């Protein structure tokens, strides 16, 4: 493992904001797909999962950042995993204490936060090198990005699949829910559709950007 230059990042707005979009773990980096798809069948599940993950991110990030100078690199992965598992266990109990219904809805995916690649990836790439405060801010940003992405999925799936949002009925009593949206295929389809939309916007932007540089529109 080569010694990376330990560039200490200055705390800026970007430390937080880039997790929301530029480094959005779901839509851009395509990380943490399992919980993203599995628990996004309703908005409340999605947000709870997002918050739980954010807590683990921030907690483990802070601890790893604080201990970064004491952890030898040979055992760093093992150390990170143990630390992450600790925070996940805490979240697990916390959610049981808050609401058993929510716990039942999220199922094993709370515990599976441990193997969410976002967290280990952040620990390895950021927390192990940066000071406490930037790590905390960055973790919160990534967590917020994850939560937003989950909500984007969860809200669409809940609105179409049940006709509700956060359990509130949005449409009249005669509304026909699209059951497929809360079933497994719906998860894949909705995430795929979001990515299609972003691709489309991005490519349209690129085409717009190309247009004024002298390429005639009919050149295609």
């Amino acid at each position, binding site marked *: 493992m080569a010694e990376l230059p330990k560039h200490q990042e200055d705390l800026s707005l970007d430390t937080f904001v880039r997790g929301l979009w530029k480094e959005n773990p779901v839509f851009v980096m395509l990380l943490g797909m399992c919980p993203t798809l599995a628990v996004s069948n309703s908005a409340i599940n999605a947000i709870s999962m997002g918050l739980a993950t954010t807590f683990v991110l921030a907690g483990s990030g802070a601890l790893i950042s604080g201990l970064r100078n*004491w*952890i030898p690199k040979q055992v760093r992965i093992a150390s990170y995993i143990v630390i992450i598992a600790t925070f996940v*266990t805490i979240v697990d109990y916390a959610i049981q204490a808050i*609401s058993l219904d929510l716990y039942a809805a999220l199922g094993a995916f709370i515990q599976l936060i441990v193997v969410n690649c976002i967290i280990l990836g952040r620990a390895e790439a950021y927390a192990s090198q940066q000071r406490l405060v930037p790590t905390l801010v960055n973790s919160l940003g990534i967590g917020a990005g994850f939560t937003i992405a989950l909500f984007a999925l969860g809200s669409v799936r809940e609105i179409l699949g049940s006709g509700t949002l956060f359990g509130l009925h949005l449409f009249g009593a005669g509304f026909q829910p699209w059951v497929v949206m809360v079933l497994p295929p719906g998860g894949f389809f909705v995430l795929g559709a979001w990515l299609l939309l972003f691709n489309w916007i991005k490519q349209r932007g690129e085409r717009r950007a190309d247009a004024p540089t002298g390429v005639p529109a009919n050149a295609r």
Partner: protein
Amino acid sequence: MTNDVQVEAPQAPPDATPTFAMLRTLGGISLISGLLVVLAYQFTLPIIAENQRVRTEQAVFRVVPGAVTKRDFVLTDAGLVPAGEGVQGELIYAAYDAADQLKGVAITGVGNGYAGPVTVLFNYDPACQCIVGSKILQMTETPGFGDKMETDPEFLENLKALDAKLNADGTALINPIVTVKHGTKTHPWQIDAISGATLSSNAMGKAANTAAQRATPAIQRDLAKLTAANHTGQD
């Protein structure tokens, strides 16, 4: 092959961390982790237990209308044993109204449905020896189909007076509870299936039958315990 070997070959690190440091770190981290987990566990344990109690209680009170208190019993081969006496086994819940009268006994049953097991809580009325209400605790049936078991009034009608009479020995039901095809219910121990959701309806029938077959002999035999237990509870 050769490439792999080269990549995997240990390149003796210039500043080898002593084994002791590694162990110390891992040990330290494990210690911190253990501490945090135990703290969290201890802190949340009573809350979780309370949550669980409230959840069961709510379910029981919903399935037995009018009930305000409940007592738990363990179903054993020897009969009913009040819960909390170190006996493990399936639980049944006796529910009482404000006047301490036994309103019904909540019993659970499981049946295999279209997409997996369906767990149902039934309200068993020892007086009429029938099932008079139900609540689905857990299922994975298709929304829009299987959930008709909770919403379809025609179907729920089946579960308002479902015959569960015991035979002469008191060991089993005279007529096992069965699900029959839509529109052909002729006996009080039959469940009229939902049209189009036959497998889910079958699951309900199986759940009711297993629950009744397991629990009702013991309940009928130890009926006195249920009412008596209530009085001791009042003391």
